[in-house]
């Protein structure tokens, strides 16, 4: 929660349904709505006006969870086909998502280098660190970027946790099998603090 919130005067704090302007003065954005020539707030927050562009907005006290392009997330692979993998999103920017969202990883977004098919990239059950490239449904994700890739993986044969062998290859300590994955440089170190898990935590 930013300090700027506090420094603003208490005068322009509004609750849903408060009249904040008339339609001749400003253009309402998605935090306001127009009714009978008046602009009313839809949320609790502080009114911010832009006199140059004639825009009015309410800075909400509590942000709803909104997915943005470029957000970094953590998720688990549900199934893998030749061209695509389906990934359940569990965390975005270290915040737990309110409920599972499903996303698609296409083989072209798996790595900068050439990969023959998706089975070289990931397997079902793996944990991925990714970024969002399309925020509307269907959500598309990408592994191209710094620190993105597989972070936790299990052996295809015995189910044991895999260990880092070399870049883009993992070794099973149980059956010594070496397997291909697109690994993140933080492989095996996915530990985040879970002090707050609310979806509405101000980000």
């Amino acid at each position, binding site marked *: 929660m930013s300090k700027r919130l*506090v420094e603003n005067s208490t005068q322009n*704090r509004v609750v*849903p*349904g408060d009249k904040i302007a008339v339609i001749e003065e400003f253009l309402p954005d998605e935090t306001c709505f127009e009714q009978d020539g008046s602009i*009313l707030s*839809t949320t609790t927050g502080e009114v911010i006006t832009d006199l140059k562009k004639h825009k009015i907005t309410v800075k909400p006290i*509590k*942000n709803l969870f909104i997915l943005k392009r470029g957000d970094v997330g953590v998720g688990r692979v549900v199934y893998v086909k030749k061209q695509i993998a389906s990934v359940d999103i569990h965390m975005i920017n270290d915040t737990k998502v*309110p409920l599972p969202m499903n996303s698609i990883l296409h083989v072209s977004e798996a790595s900068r280098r050439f990969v023959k098919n998706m089975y070289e990239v990931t397997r079902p059950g793996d944990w991925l660190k990714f970024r969002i490239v399309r925020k509307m449904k269907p959500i598309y994700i990408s592994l191209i970027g710094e620190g993105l890739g597989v972070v936790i993986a299990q052996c295809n044969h015995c189910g044991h946790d895999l260990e880092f062998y070399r870049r883009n290859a993992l070794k099973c300590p149980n059956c010594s099998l070496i397997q291909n994955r697109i690994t993140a440089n933080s492989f095996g170190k996915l530990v985040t603090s879970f002090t707050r898990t609310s979806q509405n935590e101000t980000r």
Partner: protein
Amino acid sequence: MTQDKISLLLDDGRRLDGRELHEIRPITMKSSVLDRADGSCYLTWGNNKIICAVYGPRELHPKHLAKPDRAIVRVEYRLATFSVNERKSPAPRRREYELSKLIKESLDSVLFLEKFPNGTIDVYITVLDADGGTRCAALTAASIALADAGIPMKGFITGCAVGKVADKMVVDLSDVEDKDGQGDMPVAMNYNTGEITLLQCDGEFTTDEVKEGLSLAIRAIGEVYKMQKEAVLAKYTQIEESIDDLGEEEE
């Protein structure tokens, strides 16, 4: 019967709990009381104690209930087993189903549901201690919890009951007045726009009395609405305090 009705008013014209005819009971409201809920409200209205939690907008399970163009609202109004005179069975009764439906329909009118396609907004209301007028209090609490969860809405729904006791129209019936009085008329509305979203009535009223009751209810709702606004804005004070605490710790 007549004797019963008269005994609900004291000799000096006041009501059994010492209130004037048009006086509402003391109300306290507090938002953001639960850690895990997205929005919550604890409301006391006289002896009524109501807790309300809002979860959402979130993905809906089972998925076949989802609407592709809008979110749905699910409301569960429940009475705690110990909130009434005779212990209530923990299973919901017909009354609770009906009130849940009415509260849902009332809230529907102020929410921008089309912003969250396929989603759901869950409103859970539990009446911990009941003393008449719980549906109006529940709606009032639900609005605060929804605003606390940051869900976009056109305005608050505020409720207040009016009724007829000893041939006089009174505001905000208590449990005794509700049971032994001549009639009860809960009203809820969006006070800003004047849209009435809930109106029920049982008892004997003349048309003039209904008109009088409506205007009395709207006046009382105005009072409650002011408190609602304060309760929602009180969150800024909470945040300021928590920032102050953090500052002290850092020092």
